[in-house]
């Protein structure tokens, strides 16, 4: 009898606690690999700041360190902790699907941030919050085409393309966006070669050196991010080849500086702060029962030498 009373009392207490916490939303996040690059580091800081600024949110911030197994374990921990929603930055778009399904079965909505999981897992995801990489690629093509038209070489220009690491969704989508859009806006511009720079400035510089040897006439370079774009720029500078139009994506501080110096034409402005805030807002909207689109993109505008004054220099 005594035992039953105690049990009843503790159950009541738990229920009370449950009611109390219903006011605040407990949102767990498992990130991909904080610290490996400035984008992810800034993202985490911005996420924590945004969560602290919102009195209704209690955040559980975890990082998988790039390890799929650890991320799956973290998903299970968050399910055990009975958080209200889980945000995941997938370490691997395929391998995390079972863990995402488990969360969904436990009644916890999952929001995918930054890079989406594979299509097989879409049924278990409440919403994806992140950049639209295909649009980014398309916008880079437009930036480049507009510049060629301004220069009057849209009928003859030759472009080389340096992609991100082969096999990465972001790399594939940006490349697709660019290569689909360019012929629509500038049908007479040719992409003469495509090689991967593996998101690495040094590798990209080597690739560009080889391009400069191979092609006597290069009018434009499209790189999958500014880090690689600046690597290509360094190669062109070292070879004394001038007048090449460099367009990247994910505007980095180095890209911004090169634009300020007049060496680099344009990029896509993607802020990790916007990315983190959009993920948190998507999670809150889902919990509040608002109508959230499945693909909830945040805007990543074009930035060129002409309008760069409207943007603050990226912190990464």
């Amino acid at each position, binding site marked *: 009898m005594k035992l039953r009373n105690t049990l009843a009392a503790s159950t009541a207490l738990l229920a009370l606690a449950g009611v109390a916490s219903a006011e605040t939303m407990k949102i767990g996040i498992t990130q991909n690999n*904080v*610290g*490996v*690059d*400035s984008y*992810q*580091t800034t993202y985490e800081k911005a996420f924590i700041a945004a969560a602290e600024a919102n009195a209704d949110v209690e955040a559980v911030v975890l990082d998988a360190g790039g390890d799929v197994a650890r991320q799956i374990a973290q998903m299970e921990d968050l399910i055990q902790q009975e958080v209200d929603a889980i945000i995941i930055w997938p370490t691997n778009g395929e391998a995390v699907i079972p863990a995402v399904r488990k969360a969904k079965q436990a009644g916890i909505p999952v929001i995918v941030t930054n890079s989406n999981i594979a299509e097989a897992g879409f049924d278990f995801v409440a919403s994806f919050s992140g950049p639209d990489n295909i649009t980014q690629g398309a916008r880079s093509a437009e930036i480049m085409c507009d510049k060629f038209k301004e220069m009057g070489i849209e009928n003859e220009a030759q472009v080389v393309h340096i992609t991100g690491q*082969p096999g990465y969704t972001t790399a594939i989508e940006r490349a697709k966006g660019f290569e689909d859009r360019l012929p629509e806006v500038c049908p007479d511009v040719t992409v003469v*070669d*495509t*090689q*991967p720079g593996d998101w*690495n*400035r*040094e590798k990209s*510089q*080597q*690739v560009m*050196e*080889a*391009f400069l*040897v*191979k092609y006597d006439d290069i009018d434009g370079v499209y790189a999958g991010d500014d*880090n690689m774009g*600046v*690597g290509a720029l*360094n190669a062109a500078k*070292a*070879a004394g080849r001038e007048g090449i139009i460099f367009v990247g994506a994910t505007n*980095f*501080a*180095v890209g911004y*500086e090169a634009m300020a110096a007049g060496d680099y034409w344009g990029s896509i402005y993607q802020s990790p702060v916007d990315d983190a805030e959009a993920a948190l807002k998507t999670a809150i909207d889902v919990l509040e029962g608002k109508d959230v689109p499945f693909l909830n993109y945040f805007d990543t505008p074009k930035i060129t030498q002409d309008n760069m004054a409207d943007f603050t220099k990226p912190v*990464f």
Partner: protein
Amino acid sequence: MSDASRNASDLREGIMATLSRQQVGAILARQGILIAFAVFMIAFTLANPKFLTPDNVLSVVRSSAIIGVMALGVTFVVISGNLDLSVGSMMSFSTIVVLDLHDKMGPLLAIPAMFAMTLCLGAFIGFLVGYLRLNSLIVTLGMLSAIHGLTLTYSGGQNMDIADKEGTWFSIFGQGTALGIPVPILIFVALAALLGLALAKTPFGRKVYAVGGNGTAATFSGIPRARTVFTCYLISAACVATAGLIQASRSLGSQNTVGQGLELEVLAAVILGGASLLGGSGTIFKTVIGVLILGFIQNGLLLVGLQFYVQFVVTWVIIILAVWLDIAAKRGKLWSPIA
């Protein structure tokens, strides 16, 4: 002509042929990897005439200099019978540190400070492998990850960039030229000459071979095994610091993953040069050839315009072909049922 004299001249010709075949065999056996190198160079030049232009050759050698400098140090470690898998993340560390210190204390102090910090890492590994006799594979694999973590902690995960890129003389190590030759190449050549002499002509060099060839015998012959191994890791760390300096100077800014994965390319170059993973054999000259083969393959495939998914495969097919050619030349035949 009489039958007798014809027989005599046949005999003489036969002897000549045998001699020259032996001579050719001996040359082949010693320089199999050089021949492989020449074959690839000719093949790539035929595929794209721009391959062998001075501009391209200089740019390939300059790009290879970073891996090359690291490979020189690793050659010592490998000959001493050990491995060094930490050089990639150690290079990231050196690069990030020197870039960070450049803006804080100026290049003149930043460079020695970075060298000192990198040498500390090398000394630590050398202590674990040399004096404590821990397995070098485990130690350096662990250090690969530990140093990566150290770099991330140091940089707070941020990219490191020099603020004033135009106004610093620090760029000479990576971007400068002297007599029309890029400085990275000069550093690579000078270091190769220096370390090549140290390995081939000094008592220390002979100790490295002895320790790697048969550590126990070396110890009983009074050779300080621990100190020799320790020194090899110090040399490796000094080379890594030099590579980090070139890398930092070349782009004046860096991601903190810049050296990631380079340990395998470095090791591939060393083994391609013919150093035995079991220790006791290898030379600096052949490592340099190994480095150049790797560099020219990557550049050649780019110029040929092969689709890049295929490049990964082709690169390794060529490396294995080169190693096979080298071994076949040593054995004197292409195939042998016994190793």
